[in-house]
């Protein structure tokens, strides 16, 4: 059993998805999905333990050996991502039953869970597999289910948002496919391990350059990296709240993972950063992204939009850490992936609770909520402080590492810019806080009460995780460091 963990990680949610149809009762399906997601989480914990103690796990699908068959390869990086995805998925699902009650018609509940599980499968698959073509397959599974999930949003704009995402996402996926195709043409293999050995031989050919360009642009589209981020704000804002919480915490992380995997493992460090000026380009785009997105966030009147733009800005931080291309920089990026998942998970779940009670998340409806929904608002405050990077929250940990990485390289001006960027975060977070705590409630919201326990438990689980992992950083720092070191080929 234990040797089959890598495949079980992916196959359990995949098989569970159609089974939901048999149950076909909202509550039952919910419990079943929760169970499946919890199982996936347990498996990811076991996998991480195994990887941290005994090194990389290679699993041959169906017993076919690597270059011919599909290989699932779990190293520190994957295991870390699997943990984030399945963990967040489980916590978010906990609130799903209550949340979709108000947002999705009853007859579609079963489909919702099916799509949710498929989307989970896709993300886990992308991360677990060691085969480039398999990445594309799972990418499509997760994307297609994502389009459908977003389209389930209450408002009509959800359809348009989903359509936008569909077009951009498909372009991205196609680019990735083209890139993979070109790689296959040059090397005759799809296994990432193999590719990384064979690509250097043909590294100077135009085909490899082109394939690299296609893959990077495709991934950056999925990543919503500035300036390819246009699909994200609407998709997040109009999707059902649970979906937003799940995607905001995980989807972009998966894309960052792909970026790291392709640049570091497949194409190799020297090709990605020496032959091509990726460093300068990404550094610039990351910084511009931070400033443009944060500034845009300040001017949003819809709080979901506001935090969606904040997500784009946070991706900028990950990109900056990535473009430093040192162990410290990559550690910062990986840490921020973990930490950002916790912050945004908490914040978007709290927003889901607000929608459940009030029906919308326009900033003006937040008036007086500090008094009416104290626990939910406190969660947004702590999540916001974490975004800003206040000490004793996870945000501080990633900020510290990012700063260390930048100053270590002597890039002081960029360190200053990063810090100024987090000042913008103060502004947009405080806009929400001031409205919630300093204004009198709207007339129609006068009777609003605190969110039900089914929201508060998952929200506060994530909030406490925000603080816990900001104080006890052993797990996140150790794993992130080990993963970064192994990607650089440094033995820890």
């Amino acid at each position, binding site marked *: 059993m234990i040797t089959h963990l890598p495949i079980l990680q992916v196959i359990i949610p995949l098989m569970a998805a159609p089974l939901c149809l048999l149950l076909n009762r909202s509550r039952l399906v919910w419990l079943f999905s929760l169970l499946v997601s919890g199982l996936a989480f347990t498996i990811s914990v076991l996998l991480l333990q195994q990887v941290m103690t005994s090194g990389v796990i290679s699993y041959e699908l169906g017993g076919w050996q690597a270059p011919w068959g599909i290989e699932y390869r779990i190293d520190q990086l994957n295991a870390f991502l699997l943990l984030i995805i399945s963990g967040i998925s489980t916590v978010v699902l906990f609130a799903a039953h209550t949340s979709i009650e108000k947002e999705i018609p009853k007859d579609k509940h079963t489909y919702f869970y099916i799509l949710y599980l498929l989307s989970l499968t896709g993300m886990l698959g992308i991360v677990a597999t060691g085969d480039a073509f398999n990445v594309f397959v799972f990418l499509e599974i997760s994307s297609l289910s994502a389009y459908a999930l977003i389209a389930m949003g209450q408002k009509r704009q959800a359809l348009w948002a989903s359509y936008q995402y569909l077009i951009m996402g498909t372009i991205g996926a196609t680019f990735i496919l083209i890139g993979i195709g070109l790689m296959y043409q040059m090397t005759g293999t799809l296994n990432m391990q193999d590719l990384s050995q064979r690509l250097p031989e043909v590294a100077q050919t135009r085909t490899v350059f082109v394939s690299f360009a296609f893959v990077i642009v495709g991934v950056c589209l999925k990543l919503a990296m500035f300036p390819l981020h246009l699909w994200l704000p609407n998709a997040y804002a109009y999707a059902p709240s649970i979906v937003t919480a799940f995607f905001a915490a995980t989807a972009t992380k998966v894309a960052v993972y792909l970026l790291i995997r392709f640049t570091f493992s497949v194409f190799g460090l020297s090709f990605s950063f020496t032959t091509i000026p990726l460093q300068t380009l990404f550094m610039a785009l990351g910084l511009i992204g931070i400033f443009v997105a944060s500034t845009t966030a300040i001017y949003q009147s819809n709080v979901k939009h506001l935090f969606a733009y904040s997500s784009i800005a946070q991706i900028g931080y990950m990109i900056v850490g990535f473009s430093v291309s040192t162990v410290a920089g990559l550690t910062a990026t990986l840490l921020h992936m973990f930490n950002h998942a916790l912050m945004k998970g908490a914040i978007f779940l709290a927003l889901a609770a607000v929608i459940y009670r009030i029906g919308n998340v326009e900033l003006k409806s937040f008036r007086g909520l500090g008094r009416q929904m104290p626990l939910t608002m406190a969660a947004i405050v702590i999540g916001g402080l974490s975004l800003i990077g206040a000490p004793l929250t996870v945000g501080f940990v990633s900020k*510290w*590492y990012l700063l260390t990485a930048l100053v270590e390289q002597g890039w*002081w001006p960029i*360190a200053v810019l990063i810090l100024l960027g*987090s000042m913008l975060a103060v502004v947009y977070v*405080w806009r929400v806080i*001031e409205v919630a705590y*300093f204004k009198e409630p709207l007339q129609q919201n006068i009777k609003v009460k605190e969110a039900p326990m089914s929201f508060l438990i998952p929200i506060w689980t994530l909030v406490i995780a925000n603080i816990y992992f900001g104080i006890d*950083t052993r797990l996140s720092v150790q794993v992130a460091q080990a993963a970064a070191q192994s990607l650089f080929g440094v033995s820890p």
Partner: protein
Amino acid sequence: MNLSLELMLQLCIIMPLLATFAIVATGRYPNLREGVTIATCLALIFLVVNLYQGLSAGESISVYWWELLPGLTISFDIEPLGMLFALVASFLWLVTTCYAIGYMRSHQEKNQTRFYACFAVAIGAVMGLAFSANLFTLFIFYEVLTLSTYPLVTHAGTEKAKKGGRVYLGILLSTSIVFFLLAIVSTWLVAGTLDFKLGGVFADDVDKVIASILLVLFIFGIGKAAIMPFHRWLPAAMVAPTPVSSLLHAVAVVKAGVFTVLKVCIFIFGLDLLAELPSTQFLLYLAGASVLLASLIAMRQDNLKARLAYSTVSQLGYITIGALLATSSGVIGSSMHIAMHAFGKITLFFCAGAILVTLHKSKISEMRGIGLQMPITMLAFFIASLSIIGVPPTGGTWSKWYLMMGTIETEQFVLMVILMLSSLLNIAYLLPIPFHAFFPNLTSFKASEELNNTTKISDKRLSGFEIKEAPLPSLIAIVVTTLGCLTLFIYPQPLFDLASAILTGRE
């Protein structure tokens, strides 16, 4: 009781935080809630005094909590400077609580539970800050202090409070994150450690340019020290209820700022390195400018609390100057001034609050003659003003004396002149207030005829006034801090011993 000193040290930080929960839990019963606060104050003073005795007996008290990031620990270590700060803060917390009970009730403030709860968190943060063994721990508590005082500053919940809160948080957070954090990270990378060490952590051959830049980053980053141009938050924070202004913005928050400056100067840079850096001179003049300008601005304020706020900005500049002078008398003067100014300024704020609750006056121009109604308060105001100015028989004399000595030793005559000028300005903006309060007709001395008439008239008018002092708990607080100002003049020895032990290690 048989507690080990290490345990006491930890209790100093944890107990106020635990008290927060108790305060929230007893929120419905005001008397019980205030009982909890007072009990915590007393216990805290007991602990701090015990620690002080332990320190005086030559014991080293340090605690290690946990490693937050590899190599960066949260740990505590008591040294004389931190002890001094903790003593002042814990004692004045008790006095302020006493004052606040009178003030908040007679002013019928809302959300008093939140008020006392945040207050307790802030004091816990101050204790953590005072006892920090490294810059990293200090930074954490520094930020906790900023965030926990935000609800206190915006207590009123009005539009004005919101604006004040914005400036408060905006300046304190941005300076600390943009400059202070950057300085800490860089120090960590340059020196390899953040532990406070007498004589500094930098190697002897450290690049002077980098060290200079770091010093500037530190001084700018410690926004709580309110060096111009980062002083705006302090006047903005005056929208808070008076007990908050008194404890936090005369003692805890601003003193946390200058305390951090002293810590950084003495234990991160070391006085020898500090004296050699080219940026020290620049920062000295900046602090000097801050002293002078703030005094000048204070003269023009008609709102009493605003005038006191600018006066605080100016006095904080003294402490920063003392630290940057990098001599032992500078350091002694600075650290003594932390205590002296705390007692003086808290009294002044107490008086301002007392005038507000009893007579509902906040403008200085309206305060003529109030000395006849509130004699005790205004007498206290007079004595505290003397302490701020630095004349006998008040404690402020000593600290200003040592600061002057420091400027003379280092031959910083410009600064010496600035300090003297500023003292004159202090006289000009503080003393008229009690004078006019007691002698409302002071300006009409010119014509004796008129004088007679006016005195008669005003005597009639004044006979209508009754003595109407502040609520009793507040009055007690005022008297206690005023006596503190006087006692510190007669009996400054323990304070001096602590201050002079900073540079020699332990007592």
